């Protein structure tokens, strides 16, 4: 039935040759124009599993302002220039970064306001807790007060006392030491090693200034990121020649990755096309062989449009794999060689059946990915299947029409490929070597590594990484930080929850390891409790007692009667309990608090280490709405999810191939022989990667699946040809197909983008192993088991 369908279809296409060719040309032209209107995605998000933790973490990072920020480090490049010049450049650049792309530019904080905000009598009552007041209580006695007064006296001999002596008048007990314990974590809470001078962020060497720019562009928005990066570049070019800039931000990775992938795809396409052309023209010496290359390319263009219509957007990574698929669809090659060997329309049915079975096995290899829960894998499956169906239709019904020209008919060559087929290798030796190598590589394959670190697939340019390196050398902040997120319906609710969580987190990790807003600025409820406690503390006789002790002990050091009057007069007269708008506390809140979609989230930071994550995991289970965002945990989730998926998908792929091949041969012996290249390709890929200590990752696993979908054809075609003693030139077709596939995938070895490079490596290993086993091992098995059965071609 299949044979009749293909035979009739071919006759119909030939009868309406002009219509078919014009239709193909018009649709292709439309598709090419349509490429400009497709929405492409450059991020690897699509390739991440829909695991609850992974999705929540990624969603959080997208929603938080963390990923929308750009940070600019300006450096003085000429020694004769000073801070004044640097600050002038900072101010000019900050003023030039305007909406709509740039929402807010922060170049520093007002330290004058900070002195008010963090003064002993303003900040202390709000922040000191019960334990700290108890510590203070222990100092209100004769010896301690005498010691404190002596310290204040001695302090006046120090150089800094020129500016700080009078501050002691509001702090006879040295309460600032208690506050300092909290405030010393302030610089690290900023995330960077900064000092503030003249209200601006300055590096310790005084030669760099920092601007924190809140943009309106989400990091994942490739189109607007490009615009943002371009405008920023333009603004930075306007800086004076004595100032250089290092800019860091996720947008630069997005843009750079997109550029790298586009460049690599272009290079791979050119290299592959040149390789194919040389190969085909050298072997066939016929310009019509060009159509064998052309139609898979057209199929990719058509498939991009079809899949974009189905999916809405299309990932660059998926298209990147599509370029490899161009190289692997060998249907056109089989048809071309068969026609070159003189296959006429009466044999088109059989040829159609063989090509169809080739296509079906490949399609089912990709169809397995539809069962994956990862959206990128599903999109890849749909894209590949659409691409292969279009390619199959082109190969069977359009390609033959382009091979027979009116004035230049196809010159038949009935012996093409015969020499290749007649090559015979010693059966036992071939099988012995194959069994030995496959066994060794099988053993090695059990120790192959899986690298779940998605960051290693970041193909940003060296300039992006260099800017980050420069930045971290100046400003620190290189240690990877994980985030503990506490949620609430509003800021106060979230801050109250954050206070509760903070105490447990500090117990689990220690104060040094955990940076939280609760340390510097707890919730209004906690601050009010602290203020009330402070007032009670002093009113319960301690104020009177301290006044008496000071009066008694101060005479020895020459203190005046009103030396500490500002302290006692300010004990209960706090100006305001709120932070200064634009002050340091407000600035800190911006770093720690995220408001999105009617929900408030408060972030706390801690080193992204396994022991810390494990220590806090129990806490997240006790408090609803509390979760951890960690690069390390993200990697672990991706890793375990991918492994779980492979446990399901790999047996499914084997089952599909087994069933389809059996349906084709209806014979277990031939079915198993036909699957030898598939087994070889997979085992050798894992074994060789293990031998060279190359890890598997989320991308090259897919490349392996694609390649195995191709090599299953090799086994099928060659077993079929040997079994039926056909003369379609399958060995020749397979050899050329493998050569072209290796050129196509090999072109990706030149790719600078790590994801595409690792794809190339996996595909080349898998396809070379598959091809060698199909031309050496499969015929050996066939001859050993005498599968040949005479059947007219």
């Amino acid at each position, binding site marked *: 039935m299949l044979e009749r369908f293909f035979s009739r279809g071919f006759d119909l296409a030939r009868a309406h040759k002009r219509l078919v060719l014009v239709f193909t040309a018009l649709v292709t032209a439309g598709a090419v124009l349509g490429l400009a209107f497709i929405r492409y995605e450059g991020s690897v998000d699509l390739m991440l599993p829909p695991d609850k933790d992974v999705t929540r973490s990624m969603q959080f990072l997208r929603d938080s302002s963390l990923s929308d920020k750009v940070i600019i480090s300006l450096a003085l490049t000429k020694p004769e220039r*000073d*801070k*004044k010049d640097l*600050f002038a450049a900072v101010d000019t650049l900050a003023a030039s970064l305007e909406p709509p792309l740039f929402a807010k530019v922060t170049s520093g904080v*007002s*330290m*004058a306001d900070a*002195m*008010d905000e963090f003064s002993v009598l303003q900040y202390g009552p709000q922040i000191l807790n019960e334990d700290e007041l108890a510590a203070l209580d222990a100092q209100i006695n004769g010896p301690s007060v005498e010691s404190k007064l*002596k310290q*204040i006296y*001695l302090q*006046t*001999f*120090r*150089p*800094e006392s*020129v*500016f*700080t*002596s*009078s*501050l*002691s*008048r509001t702090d006879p007990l040295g309460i600032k030491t208690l506050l300092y314990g909290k*405030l*010393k974590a*302030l*610089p690290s809470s900023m995330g960077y*090693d*900064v*000092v*503030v*001078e*003249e*209200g601006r962020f300055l590096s*310790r060497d*005084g030669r760099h200034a920092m601007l924190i720019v809140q943009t309106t562009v989400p990091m994942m928005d490739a189109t607007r990121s490009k615009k943002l990066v371009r405008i920023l570049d333009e603004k930075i070019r306007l800086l004076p020649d004595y100032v250089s800039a290092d800019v860091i931000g996720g947008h630069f990775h997005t843009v750079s990755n997109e550029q790298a992938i586009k460049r690599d795809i272009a290079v791979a396409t050119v290299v592959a096309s040149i390789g194919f052309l040389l190969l085909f023209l050298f072997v066939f010496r016929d310009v019509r062989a060009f159509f064998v290359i052309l139609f898979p390319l057209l199929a990719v263009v058509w498939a991009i449009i079809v899949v974009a219509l189905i999916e809405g957007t299309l990932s660059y990574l998926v298209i990147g794999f599509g370029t490899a698929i161009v190289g692997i669809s060998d249907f056109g090659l089989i048809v071309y060689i068969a026609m070159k060997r003189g296959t006429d329309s009466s044999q088109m049915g059989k040829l159609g059946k063989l090509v169809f079975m080739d296509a079906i096995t490949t399609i089912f290899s990709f169809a397995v990915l539809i069962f994956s829960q990862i959206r990128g894998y599903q999109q890849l499956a749909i894209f590949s299947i659409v691409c292969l169906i279009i390619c199959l239709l082109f190969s069977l019904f359009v390609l033959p029409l382009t091979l027979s020209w009116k004035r230049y008919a196809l010159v038949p060559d009935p012996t093409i490929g015969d020499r290749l087929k007649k090559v015979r290798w010693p059966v036992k030796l071939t099988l012995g070597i194959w069994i030995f190598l496959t066994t060794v590589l099988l053993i090695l394959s059990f120790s192959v590594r899986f690298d779940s670190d998605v960051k290693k697939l970041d193909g940003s340019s060296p300039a992006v990484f260099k800017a980050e390196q420069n930045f971290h050398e100046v400003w620190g902040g290189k240690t990877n930080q994980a985030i503990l997120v506490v949620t609430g319906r509003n800021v106060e609710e979230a801050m109250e929850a954050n206070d509760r969580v903070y105490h447990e987190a500090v117990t689990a990790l220690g104060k040094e390891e955990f940076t939280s807003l609760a340390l510097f600025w707890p919730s209004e409820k906690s601050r009010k409790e602290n203020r009330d406690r402070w007032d009670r503390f002093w009113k319960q006789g301690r104020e009177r007692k301290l006044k008496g002790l000071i009066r008694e002990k101060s005479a020895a050091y*020459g*203190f*005046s009667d*009103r*030396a*500490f009057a500002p302290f006692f007069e300010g004990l209960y007269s706090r100006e305001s309990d709120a932070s200064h708008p634009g002050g340091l506390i407000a600035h800190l809140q911006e770093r720690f608090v995220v408001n999105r979609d009617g929900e408030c989230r408060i972030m706390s930071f801690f080193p992204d280490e396994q022991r810390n994550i494990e220590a806090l995991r129990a806490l997240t289970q006790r408090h609803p709405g509390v979760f951890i965002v960690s690069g390390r945990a993200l990697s672990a989730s991706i890793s375990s999810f991918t492994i779980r998926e492979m446990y399901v998908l790999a047996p499914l792929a084997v089952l599909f191939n087994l069933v389809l091949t059996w349906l084709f041969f209806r014979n277990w012996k031939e079915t198993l022989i036909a699957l030898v290249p598939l087994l070889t390709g997979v085992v050798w890929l894992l074994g060789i990667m293990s031998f060279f200590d190359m890890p598997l990752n989320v991308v090259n696993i897919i490349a392996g699946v694609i390649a195995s979908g191709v090599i299953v054809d090799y086994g099928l075609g060659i077993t079929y040809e040997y079994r039926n003693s056909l003369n379609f030139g399958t060995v020749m077709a397979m050899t050329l197909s493998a050569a072209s596939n290796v050129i196509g995938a090999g072109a990706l070895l030149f790719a600078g983008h790590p994801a595409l490079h690792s794809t190339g490596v996996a595909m080349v290993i898998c396809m070379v192993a598959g091809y060698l086993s199909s031309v050496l091992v499969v015929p050996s098995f066939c001859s050993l088991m005498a599968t040949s059965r005479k059947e007219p071609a």
Partner: protein
Amino acid sequence: MMILAERCMMMLVTLILCFLAQAGAVFADDKSAAAAQQQNDLSALLNSIGKKVSDFTSLKTEFTQEKEMAMFKQKLVLKGRIYLQKPGKIAWHVDAPVRYSVLITDTLIRQWDEDTNKVQEISLAKNPIFQNVLNQLTVWFSGEYGSLLAINDVRVMQNEPLVLEFVPKEKNMSHKVIKSITITFREDKKYLKQILIREKNGDATAITFINTQLNVPLDDSSFEVKR
């Protein structure tokens, strides 16, 4: 001939500027131009003075510090020595009424006092606020005044000897505490004669430099804190 012509032109320009400055009440724009000119002149003056004063690699001076503070019944008078080695090393030794020494470098503070007889070391990296205060102090001592115009209103109070008054602007961290800082230069303008710091609460500190020697070799003992 050319130089004479340039001088005449300069005088003419100055006269015109003076005229315009007097007519400022009528011509507001011209007034702001004059203010800008004045700012430029001050900037040039500070840069030139700063260049002169900071033109040394090492410094050795005695000092007297007089503090009038509401905190104390009587004026506090300190006597001591300062050693400064560029880049970034200052030793401050107080000899009376108590003995106290501190060494300040780019990265740390090391101090000693006779009462405890202990040397204490503090990392500046962990004390950004302290570092900020010391940075300001270093600017005043080292004479690098070029950058001060941006954060202070500066006034020339007297020309011979040169006396400048710095009033912190609102954006200056010292604005909340310091009312003014008055610097009196030596006749040769090569270093400072006195720094007078007036605080907003009425306290005042005057540091007078005596026997100042520039570019003299300083041995390591000058920077030893323990005595």
